[in-house]
């Protein structure tokens, strides 16, 4: 057999039906192994099932939890917002009616779906994973073909266990060399998006490979794949290696006994074969990546901490220049301003991008022995799951954050999109470890700057963006 890319292997393995000929009016039908469901994009899908008197084909493949709408403060009183409460209660009812496993509020396993899937071992190599959320690409870190879908497709997957999907092209992003100390997967993916743009990956499944990717932990790989969608790609992938297998062993949903060894044997084949061809290849030098900070209202509007906000007024691309001007006006910034001089009002450490234990460890290592700047009105740490929170507390990370002046919260999506009460007020400026700096994303009129956990922690301490690598230079010398 001719050499195959990882994507091609996963695609072929899941084809239930393949169209004949390019002019065929039939789509490729892909089988779905794992479906993650949450409160926002599912109620209309369940309603559709009821309306058509259908049932989920394999309810045991679905795992549900509430994450987008949940309060991150005291939960003993339930959810105060009537709309949020109704949506979460509806999820509970739907899961009960259709026999779906749900981790409810109060269950230590509750958390952001893209954190709990891998944490539970419910995301496995070689699976197809879907969810009604664009950041489903996160799970590609485990060599799972994982992508976000809309609500109609949520219903389609529940009813048929399949999805009609146009085949993606393949893009290899090879990252050579190694990332410097305190430069993380978040900086790398922001750097990549800055290079290829927010539509650079549209139509592609991206595979991340190369020495820098091999060196990343599973958490780092999840951060990387999580933001493939911010480069336009529905799918991000990393090949299976020993780290993948070690991460999964013993997790509740991971295979056991003889199934485990058979699974590991299969998983070890989930990499791109030597000589396989990609539609496009991009080379990135990891050594050139610095801590990154976004300055605009699109993730591609990003520069390194030691740079200035660029001037695009002379750009040949008038659409880009206009977009930059609009973004700067919204952000209250000017081209030529040094990134390190931008002062912040709030800090958010959390989200499906950066709320895993490693993220919290890194941020805590920066924060330790420091205080949050007087300038900063609020600094939040929102763990990605109840289990991440518990682990962090065992390690004493919560105490480090609290002592420094951070608030230590309950798990959920929180200020990444501000569906609960954790929001920016108009014109408030936030150093955020989340994934989108769109207008109003974290609250109407709010100004978001995307950064890594270490950079968010450094900004919290200094009250403005600060090169975290400089905080540790003395120790390194």
């Amino acid at each position, binding site marked *: 057999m001719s050499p195959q890319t990882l994507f091609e292997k996963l695609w072929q393995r899941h084809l239930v039906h393949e169209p004949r000929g390019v002019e065929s009016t039939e789509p490729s039908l892909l089988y779905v192994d794992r479906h993650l469901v949450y409160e926002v994009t599912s109620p209309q899908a369940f309603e559709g099932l009821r309306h058509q008197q259908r049932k989920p084909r394999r309810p045991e493949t679905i795992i549900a939890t509430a994450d987008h709408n949940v309060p991150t403060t005291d939960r003993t009183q339930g959810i105060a917002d009537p709309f949020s409460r109704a949506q979460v209660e509806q999820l509970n009812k739907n899961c009960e009616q259709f026999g779906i496993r749900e981790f409810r509020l109060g269950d230590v396993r509750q958390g952001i779906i893209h954190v709990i899937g891998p944490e539970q071992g419910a995301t496995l190599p070689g699976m197809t994973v879907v969810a009604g959320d664009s950041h489903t690409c996160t799970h590609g870190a485990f060599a799972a073909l994982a992508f976000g879908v809309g609500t109609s497709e949520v219903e389609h997957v529940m009813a048929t*266990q399949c999805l009609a999907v146009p085949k993606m092209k393949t893009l290899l992003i090879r990252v050579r060399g190694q990332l410097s100390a305190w430069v993380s997967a978040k900086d790398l993916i922001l750097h990549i998006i800055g290079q290829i743009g927010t539509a650079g990956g549209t139509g592609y499944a991206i595979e991340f490979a190369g020495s820098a990717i091999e060196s990343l932990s599973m958490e780092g790989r999840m951060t990387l794949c999580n933001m493939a969608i911010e480069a336009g790609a529905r799918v991000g992938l990393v090949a299976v290696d020993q780290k993948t297998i070690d991460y999964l062993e013993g997790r509740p949903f991971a295979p056991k006994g003889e199934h485990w060894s058979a699974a590991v044997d299969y998983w070890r084949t989930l990499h791109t074969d030597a000589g396989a061809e990609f539609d496009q290849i991009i080379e990135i030098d990891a050594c050139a990546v610095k801590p990154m900070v976004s300055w605009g209202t699109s993730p591609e509007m990003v520069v390194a901490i030691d740079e200035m906000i660029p001037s695009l007024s002379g750009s040949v691309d008038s659409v880009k220049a206009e*977009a930059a001007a609009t973004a700067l006006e919204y952000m209250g910034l000017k081209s030529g301003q040094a990134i390190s001089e931008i002062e912040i009002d709030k800090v958010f450490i959390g989200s499906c991008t950066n709320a895993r234990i490693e993220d919290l460890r890194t941020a805590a290592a920066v924060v330790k022995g420091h205080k949050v700047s007087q300038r900063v009105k609020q600094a939040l740490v929102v763990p990605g799951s109840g289990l991440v929170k518990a682990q962090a507390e065992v390690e004493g990370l919560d105490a480090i954050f609290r002592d420094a002046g951070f608030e230590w919260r309950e798990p959920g999506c929180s200020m990444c999109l501000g569906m609960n009460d954790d929001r920016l007020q108009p014109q408030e400026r936030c150093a955020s470890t989340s994934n989108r700096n769109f207008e109003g994303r974290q609250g109407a009129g709010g100004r978001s700057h995307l950064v890594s956990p270490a950079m968010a922690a450094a900004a919290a301490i200094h009250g403005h963006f600060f090169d975290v690598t400089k905080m540790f230079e003395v120790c390194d010398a």
Partner: protein
Amino acid sequence: MRPFKQVESRVVPVDRSNIDTDALIPKQYIKSIERTGFGKYLFDEWRFLDKGEPGMLLEQRIPNPEFTLNMERYQGAEILVAQDNFGCGSSREHAVWALEDFGIRVVIAPSFAEIFYANCFKNGVLPIALEPEKVETLIHSALSVDGFSLLVDLPSQLINMSDGESLSFSIDPYYKLRLENGYDDIDITLTKLDQIARYEQKRREQEPWLFTV
């Protein structure tokens, strides 16, 4: 789903790139468990000067007179033209529900985000990708010519202009078939139940750990 054959309408321009689904329908409105009623919140933060919350009546809101969708000359437009990477960001189908409920049946842009693009076809909305220069011309016309209209014909895959000129567009044949006939794709997939069962049997042998519950 409502079948789509042809739409003739004036054209409303939103001359921006990277229009994300948060902009199309802000977070506070996607707490609804219904599938309808999102049109009044379309482009909420750009269309209105006050801060919107679910349940607010349109009459209470302060429209932004500078936003094209609020301008008299674009009222009733069923065709929207915008710049590249339209519909990026969140997968929320509420963005398409809002467009459709508002009355938009066609979106023309140089490029679309994939999830948004797929969502359109589930809801009787036709996204058309055209070369950037052609989109630029359409935006220019929509901004400068009062009452600028187009006739979008799906069967012939043509956009006809009043001066007799036309632009052709491409579309996946399966997507076209579904949209033209308003087919429910769950129904289509359910015709392949035998094939799905055979596939499951094969996978059960290959990867039994996926079938142990």
